């Protein structure tokens, strides 16, 4: 067994937060997604999603904008530059891990 790898970013390396980052990374440059759409895409409860969004916001990986759409308050979300970079580094680390594991298994 291999020990847990410290190189993987713990903020992103959790299923829900990883999925949030992936969805937001699929947006076009300059676009934002409203909270309910993200919730619907991920199939999560609002409370659960909020907890994870808070952690991503604390790490400054996402930008949360509270605004009003008419009279309804709306929460808009997008990946920050820092978040995009962290996601790129995370996927690069995954590939590096897989490559390392692959070469270890080779006799």
């Amino acid at each position, binding site marked *: 067994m291999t020990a847990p790898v410290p190189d993987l970013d713990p903020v992103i390396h959790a299923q829900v937060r990883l999925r949030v980052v992936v969805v937001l990374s699929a*947006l*076009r440059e300059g676009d934002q997604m409203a909270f309910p759409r993200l919730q619907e895409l991920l199939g999560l409860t609002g409370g659960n999603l909020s907890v994870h969004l808070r952690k991503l916001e604390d790490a400054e990986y996402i930008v949360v904008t509270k605004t009003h759409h008419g009279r309804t308050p709306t929460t808009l979300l997008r990946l920050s530059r820092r978040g995009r970079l962290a996601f790129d580094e995370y996927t690069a680390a995954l590939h590096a891990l897989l490559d390392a594991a692959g070469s270890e298994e080779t006799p």
Partner: protein
Amino acid sequence: MGTDEAAPVSAAESLRLIETQRDAAVRSLSPDPRLIYWPWGLAWLVGFGLLFLRHGPHEQVRVNMPSGLPLAALFALMIIAFLVSGVAGARANRQITGDSSVRGLRYGLSWLAAFAGNAVICVHFSDLLPASEVGLLWAATSVGLVGVLYLAGSAAWQSRDLMALGIWLSISNIAGVLAGPGWHSLVISVAGGGGLLVAGFVVWLHWRRHA
């Protein structure tokens, strides 16, 4: 999946999760291309096909039907296409704000400006031309605008598919005009409508890869 799993398994699982979630997001954020292209392709194929059969080259009537039927069918099918593609596009873009909405709004505005201006010009010249040439004037300028607007759209969205379609429609339209009244309808029905159906299929194949 937690943070404490054995590294190799966890890495592979994470990559699979990323891929699955990205595909789901891409499919949700862009409408099914079949709903965007096929209703328009069908409208042109049937509408211009009927025009050719009823108002053929040299006023030839290949299939007997009321004189106004082809145009009525074309407009009815285009209204349906407008609604179907509009709803599909709006569904994909719901609760998304930002640069894309601005781009979409301005692109929509360019269609409105193009066709409003074109209608005024065509109405102005319609009285001066024989009936067969009036039909060609409206059809040729309209299809020409669609080709150019697709090309402009390909610049706004960096889309090769739209560019290819814009070039194809522009060339088909020019060929149809050179062939003359009646023939233009046939060219737009087959090459234009058919081109839209093929484009929808090709773009759908790309889109489906995310399924």
